[in-house]
């Protein structure tokens, strides 16, 4: 079971780019990296997923180096509404295992005006 390490909290300002890095030193060959966002009193929401190199969608980019032992979620031009907890998950859970369903404590991102 790949374990992840993220900063407990981060602060930034509106309009800035925010990068949150997740370490996963024992990632397995068939593991994917997935990020979720959670607002207070809501369930988590999928942001982005990747396997290697770079993935970009309408809300974020995910950078994964060649060794895949870490990944960086990049949020461009954040706003106050991006204040939330961000979780990095690593693994694959097909068949009989719950690998990849460990959320950890996440990173509490606070955006200030």
């Amino acid at each position, binding site marked *: 079971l790949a374990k992840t390490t993220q900063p407990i909290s981060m602060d930034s300002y509106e309009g800035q780019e925010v990068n949150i890095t997740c370490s996963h030193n024992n990632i397995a060959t068939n593991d*994917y990296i997935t990020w979720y966002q959670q607002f207070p009193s809501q*369930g988590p*929401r*999928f942001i982005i997923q990747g396997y290697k190199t770079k993935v970009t969608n309408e809300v974020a980019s995910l950078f994964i180096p060649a060794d895949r032992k870490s990944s960086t979620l990049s949020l461009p031009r954040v706003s106050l509404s991006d204040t939330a907890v961000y979780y990095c998950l690593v693994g*694959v859970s097909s068949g009989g295992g*719950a*690998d990849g*369903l460990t959320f950890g404590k996440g990173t509490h991102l606070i955006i200030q005006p």
Partner: protein
Amino acid sequence: GAGVSQTPSNKVTEKGKYVELRCDPISGHTALYWYRQSLGQGPEFLIYFQGTGAADDSGLPNDRFFAVRPEGSVSTLKIQRTERGDSAVYLCASSQTAGTYNEQFFGPGTRLTVL
């Protein structure tokens, strides 16, 4: 289309009572997951279903917790002889199939308070 729904949104019960929490997944999603989230913590995996069967129930804390999904759609999480430590938000999620490469869609959760 409707998202994942959970009922009730809030449940207050007394220690020792039995409770049932319901989850209605997105139509057509074969995988369903239950999590428990305590204040300040991330969601903690409890159990997941692929169709009607529990593919992995390793996260259930003890035999007071049980979940069913008899027709491969709606699921019920059942907690017997509730304890104060069971107080948490219980989250349900569904995905098209099992596997973390399939996006999980979460419901709003049921806040359980055991007095």
